[in-house]
């Protein structure tokens, strides 16, 4: 989470309607976004992205989660400038993409960005290897280079042996592997994925998520990942943003969102998540005055779900130790207490809404 900022999106607005430009004439930053958006709606304009801002760090997977119509696809298209935003900044390595000329933009897309689409966006007349090599061919690389670089990513996504198949001969999962391979063929630094697994069957989706995590462990790209599936977001996100009606409602790590949902809307999503899946040892440990000797030691970041067998084997509990310093002791009782507190907080929040 620490490290340099790769992509920074600031005060991004996208408005549909007869004349969106009228709202952003003054150079001053917009003071009250909600008020301005309400004004737009009353004047036959539709704000699809309202004052959206977030940072993506180097090597981080940043997930934007929202239901359909929440503006998440608009945002990712503004990041890649498939759609031109009406206001705001998109800084890639500190340079504003929105100010780039078309020429420069093509160059950036050819070398720095890769994008994966929900319905794959494969070219029907090209086979697997040609689809993957397509961006390289557009750059005018020699056929030998094209083949070599395409072969490299083809192995990465596990499509070896299907090089000469055409998209229509492949299953959805395989087609999306081609889409992933194509987006990686240019070795991008920023990887955009727009609901890449939403068009797939649940089982295949799960499998593809694992593949994605495996690839990301190897490549460590800076990623913006769009999804409408909260559990998918939880599985893969380092940090995530929740969008609703064009606005970012909350940004944070999955734990932060679950433990401290910003409003009822977020709570509706987080409410479904079993607490045992997200609580970590440090959050459930209790500092004991007279701690028993010779207990096993665990890291505070360890998820409690994985510690259950250890806890079962050690009725007295386990020590939670961070860098040699004692944090507390995790016992069956402290775990149950932490779960109860957390579920109680959740229930109160839901009832409150």
């Amino acid at each position, binding site marked *: 989470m620490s490290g340099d900022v790769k992509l920074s999106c600031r005060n991004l607005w996208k408005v549909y309607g007869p004349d969106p430009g009228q709202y952003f004439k003054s150079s001053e930053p917009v003071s009250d976004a909600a008020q301005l958006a309400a004004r737009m709606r009353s004047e036959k304009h539709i704000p699809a992205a309202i004052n959206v801002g977030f940072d993506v760090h180097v090597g981080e997977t940043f997930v934007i989660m929202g239901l359909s119509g929440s503006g998440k696809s608009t945002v990712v*298209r503004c990041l*890649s400038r*498939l759609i031109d935003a009406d206001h705001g900044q998109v800084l890639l390595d500190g340079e504003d993409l929105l100010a780039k000329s078309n020429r420069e933009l*093509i*160059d950036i*897309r*050819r*070398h720095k*960005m*890769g*994008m994966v*689409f*929900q*319905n*794959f*966006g*494969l*070219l*029907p*007349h*090209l*086979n697997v*290897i*040609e689809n993957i090599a*397509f*961006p390289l061919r*557009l*750059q005018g690389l020699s*056929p030998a280079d094209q*083949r070599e670089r395409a072969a490299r990513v083809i192995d990465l996504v596990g499509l070896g042996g299907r090089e*000469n198949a*055409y998209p229509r001969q492949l299953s959805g999962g395989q087609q999306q592997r081609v*889409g992933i391979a*194509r*987006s990686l063929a*240019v070795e991008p630094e920023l990887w*955009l994925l727009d609901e890449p697994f939403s068009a797939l069957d649940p089982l295949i989706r799960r499998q593809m998520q694992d593949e994605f995590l495996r690839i990301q462990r190897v490549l460590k790209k800076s990623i913006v990942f769009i999804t409408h599936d909260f559990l998918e977001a939880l599985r893969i996100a380092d940090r995530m943003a929740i969008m609703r009606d064009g606005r970012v409602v909350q940004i944070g790590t999955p734990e932060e969102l679950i433990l401290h949902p910003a409003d009822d809307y977020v709570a509706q999503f987080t409410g479904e998540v079993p607490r045992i899946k997200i609580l970590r040892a440090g959050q459930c440990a209790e500092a004991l005055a007279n701690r028993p000797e010779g207990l096993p030691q665990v890291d505070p970041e360890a998820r409690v779900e994985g510690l259950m067998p250890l806890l079962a084997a050690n009725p007295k509990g386990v020590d939670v130790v961070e860098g040699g310093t004692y944090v507390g002791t995790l016992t069956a009782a402290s775990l149950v207490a932490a779960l109860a507190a957390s579920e109680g907080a959740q229930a109160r929040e839901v009832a409150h809404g």
Partner: protein
Amino acid sequence: MAEGRGAGSSLSGAVVWLALLGLALGLALLQVRFPVLHAYPADWQLPLGDWLNVLMQWLVDHTKPFFRFLSWVMGFPLQWVSDLLAWLPWSVSAVAAVLIAYQAGKRPLAIFTGVSLLYVLAMGLWPDTMNSLALVAVSVPLAIALGFGLGVAGFFRPRVERFLTPMMDVTQTVPAFAYLLPILMLFGFGPVVGLIAGVIFAFPPMVKNTIVGLREVPSEIIESGLMSGATPWQLFFRVRCAAGLRQILLGVNQTTMAALSMIIIASIIGGSEDIGWKVLSTLRKAEFGESLVAGIVIALMAMVLDRITYGLATREQDMDHDKGFLARHRFGVTLLAAMIAAYGLSLVVPALQVWPEGWTVDPSGPLNRGIEAFVIAAKPVLDATKNFVIFAFVLPLKIGFYKVVSPFTWGFTPTLWHAAFYVVLVVGGAFYARTRGRGGLAIATLSFGLILFFGLTNMTWPGLAALLIYFGYRSGGMRLALWSAAAMGFILISGSYDKAVLSVQLCGLAVVASFIIGSGLGVLAAESDRFSRILRPINDTLQTMPPFVLLIPIIMIFKIGEFSALLAIISYAVVAPIRYTEYGIRNVPKEVIEASTSLGCTRSQLLWRVKIPLAMPNIMLGLNQAIMFGISMLVISALVGTDDLGQIIYIGLSKGNFGIGFLAGIAMAVIALLSDQFCRAWQKRSEARLEGAYP
């Protein structure tokens, strides 16, 4: 047409209908006293034909050098291609054609092409065929280039498309014959006329398919192209065109077929030693055997060209880019090598150079005798059929029962009692329909009863105009009423009324017949897979064939006359209702059928209560297409002796009178456009009735 509205409006609608029918009846009875009702007076007409002639003359005078220059320029490629095709030994062309056919459709198409070529050679028609092919080979690329260019312009500029669409609709509804004369006047006599006519007639499908192909590329494919870093040019050619290629190539297929069809029609001008001229000249000399032999060549040519262009358009790509130059261009290299080999061989074996005289056969003699024998043997049956149709349908619709029925035709002398019985039958039928709640059917029964009694030609123009305009109002509101009034007005003022009525009579009868036959066959095809399989190749053949070829067998058997024209139109127009009905019924959602079956529908209930009503919009589309096909065939069937607008166009063409020919062409287009408007209105209604029926 009155159902589906409120009861009050339906009732008053029926009153208006009855009043109008009464008016029409009164006018029809009064026309003996007032001849002005029968024939629209010449004083009230405008000499539009003369004006057109003046306009055309002015155009010719001022633009002649330009068009003649264009004609001169286009003469060159045509000359080159036809010289090349004439110079090439037949074996070389044949090898090339078979290989291309193999590439497009594997072995079956290659064999079909080979056999077709052997037929052409054996009949000694190779040179004529090559001359036609040269016209196709030059006009198709021109039409494709023009169509693609306009299509791209229309894609990028919606305003261009808005301008092009109605233009193309008109160029496609004005009968093909009507084009020939202005082209002749502007470009001068010669084979170039066929070329230009081919291009003008053939480019619209290319425009439409290009626009559709480019537009329907999914946005994600475009976005993925952009994200791959495509420049605007790369995005257009490598992404958009490439992804929409299949649709664009279907445009090539349709353009080729339209060009061929027009080129065959254009040979009516003469001067080109092509296969269309062969058919026509032998047909005029009543050499049916020869004509049929040559007509089959056209049919084969059409089928081969259609299958090859279609095959190439829908071919699965299997190129392997990893291989070297030879592998990538394997087909081109093979083709060239085979052609060179064939050429080398033909230098040694003269029989491969020019097809030897001794190998040709002329089956036309025995064919003629066979046809003659058949016609004589089957005369009683043929005559009976023909007379039945003429006396029971064609003539009543034309001049009415009261003139047709005589001892000679119906076997009895009509008396007042017969007329009374007829009236009782019609009114009783209408009353019965009304009691069953079918108000529209009741009105239709009364209208047809009236029209069949007097005949369309004796219906008086004010009477018909009133009925038409009100029918327009009931079908499509004020807009369609205005359309109807404008169309009727134009036809009256231009002096085309008499001939237009005859056109409507002939074409209407043919369309109704083909709609009844066609939708019946379509229902059968939808219900039985086996029947559908049998029907499909017949449909394909009928639809691929240039319409003019259909005339040959019909004239052979039934000779020249209105009945032959009727048959020709039916056989051309019947395909569309078959196809659309089958498509419509087969595409009724499965859930609806399952639900109805589970409710206990019998098979016939399922068909009549569920499938046909749900398929209605498509069936209506079939009717619309049948009308369009019928009208285009009507003009061509003028060749077999009809007496309608088609004949006028034909006369205008042969006498070089642009004005009257083109005016008749416009009148025909007006009828076609009006029918189209009616069909759309009905289709909209049947769709509106189904709105919400589908999820």
